């Protein structure tokens, strides 16, 4: 589904459904150098189980036009503008990695618009190493390889994503490459720069009043479990779900476990 946000076309995957005003809405926000398709299984399930789904492509990512936004704050403003364009007054925000910071910041900016908050593969501060940041700027393919290798724990994901016969590592690599092809303007670096520069996480976390869920991969090397403690120590009422045998690509490495905890949380 396409919306006009800040004079640019904005794409959201809706699970093949039209939005219905009477249904609650769940917004899925992808991470750096990704698009809506990383939520393929979770978003489709919600869309067919009583929810409006907006799995966004952030500006400059995938099918959404316009330049990539350079700060988490700008992405959060864009997300609120998207909700306006979609005429959604309140939604559950589900963010992965960079998207989790966008969800957190959006919640701080407009708490009345956020019914629940789910932060998957999150960290604060979300520092990106100089090696990775420089690779993203100077050798994007190297950065893609680093992130792909560090984000996965296995060569054999069962039942794989989006289904049997698909290579999780191969799909993740190609998606990042495709994002670069669609937007060759150093997208990965822009996203990483935004993560690295975001400094409002603690302040934002202190404002969070809505039910919050943290979903953490036990073997996550990109945003290790200990890197979540700044946020979990502030949002003390937040529920924490640790996913076994899982790295940073939680939605594809353990699609059912992520969906189950997410659906239980949103439905409660």
């Amino acid at each position: 589904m396409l919306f006009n946000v800040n004079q640019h076309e904005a794409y959201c995957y809706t699970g093949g459904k039209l939005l219905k005003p009477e249904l609650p809405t769940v917004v899925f926000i992808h991470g750096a150098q990704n698009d809506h398709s990383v939520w393929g299984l979770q978003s489709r399930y919600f869309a067919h189980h009583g929810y409006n789904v907006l799995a966004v492509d952030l500006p400059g990512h995938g099918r959404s036009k316009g330049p990539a936004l350079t700060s988490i704050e700008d992405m959060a403003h864009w997300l609120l503008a998207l909700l306006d364009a979609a005429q959604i007054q309140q939604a559950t925000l589900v963010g992965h990695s960079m998207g989790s910071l966008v969800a957190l910041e959006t919640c701080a900016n407009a708490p009345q618009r956020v019914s629940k908050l789910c932060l998957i593969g999150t960290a604060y501060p979300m520092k990106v190493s100089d090696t990775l940041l420089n690779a993203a700027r100077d050798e994007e393919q190297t950065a893609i390889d680093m992130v792909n290798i560090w984000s996965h724990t296995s060569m054999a994901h069962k039942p794989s994503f989006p289904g049997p016969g698909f290579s999780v590592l191969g799909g993740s690599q190609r998606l990042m490459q495709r994002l670069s092809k669609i937007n060759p303007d150093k997208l990965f670096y822009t996203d990483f720069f935004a993560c690295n520069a975001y400094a409002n996480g603690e302040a934002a976390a202190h404002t969070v009043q809505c039910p919050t869920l943290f979903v953490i991969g036990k073997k996550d090397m990109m945003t290790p479990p200990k890197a979540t403690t700044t946020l979990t120590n502030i949002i003390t009422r937040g529920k924490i779900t640790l996913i076994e045998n899982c790295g940073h690509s939680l939605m594809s490495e353990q699609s059912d476990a992520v969906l189950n905890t997410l659906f239980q949380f949103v439905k409660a």
Partner: protein
Amino acid sequence: MSGPHYPGFDTLSLHAGAAPDPATGARATPIYLTSSYVFKDSDHAASLFNMERAGHVYSRISNPTNAVLEERIAALEGGVAGIAVASGQAALHLGLATIAGAGSHIVASRALYGGSQNLLAYTMKRFGIETTFIDPRDMDAWRSAIRPNTKALFAETLGNPGLDVLNIPEIAAIAHENFLPLLVDSTFTTPYLLRPFDLGADLVFHSATKFLCGHGTAIGGLLVDGGTFDWQEAYDKTGRFSELCEPYEGFHGMVFSEESTVAAFSLRARREGLRDFGACMSPHNAFAILQGIETLGLRMDRHVANTRKVVEFLVSHPAVASVSYPELPTHPDYELAKMLLPKGCGAVFSFNIKGDRAAGQRFVESLNLFSHLANVGDAKSLVIHPASTTHFRVPAQQLSASGITEGTMRLSVGLENVDDLIEDLSRGLKAAQKGA
């Protein structure tokens, strides 16, 4: 070694897609001989059918043993998905039928395996899909054959029977300039010798019966999606590939290119092609092919090493008129082969013995180690004499149109001790010349 790195080829050959069996701890991949899978509850069933959860429903669509094979070949090729099917022919059919229908057009190399040639020239034509066959070395021919209704360019990595080395980078560029995918049959090269996606191809298929299985024990095909081709961009620019970019009534109005940015092709191929055409692979065969793939790198090195020695022997033999192998300077693709196939040009090649059809027959009938049969890529060495088998009704003067003579032999060099193979060939050549 510094920095992160992907597992190497041999590691992937053993581990990609396979973990110890969660039910039993079995280290080898079990053969899941089951047609179907018990749902946890009604919601689980519905969500599996509607692609909201990943899992198995019915073994025509997916099977745990087959999935290991599919994920392994995807990893070895550097693609996003594999689909195991009943044969190489089924893989070619699935690849084309997923994106082509009545009124579509394919541009194909004329240097194809006879089965592929038949499928395209006669059978697909009966279903409204036309093919233009062109010389795979002629780049202008590739370009000029493309029509508005063309859906794919197709060729073999090593053409039949002359081992034309496919210039994948150039042909892929032509395909992509026209927003078309390049499909290649990589059976003769396997991902060990050549990874077509690295060179620009978009879809790959194998007759897994050959080197991947490697032991002549199972028929099977594998279709691999590189995830490289942007179907949505091609649809936006040309209107082609509505199969992937418009709602599909046959699957709840799903738009495959929205569901997956990089694996739309594989989603449709599995959800439509396996479901409706039904040419799935038996899990028994998937197991046999997995066993073969575990040693693919080791075997291909030996296949190539033996082939080089056999070629060297034949080139200098007085009873041999010519040898066609891309590593020979006399081969028209010698330079291209050095660039694209540095590990070797495989183990299947043709040579011409001096003499008539009867000489050829004497040759094959006097071999002991080389088995006279219609297959390639076995651990055991194989031979076929086209003039007395596949082309036995074809008059001598017409054989040349197919690139063969009455004395043409096709060898598939196996893993035996190469001195024994050479001795066997010496015996055959001597017998061939006796009647001359």
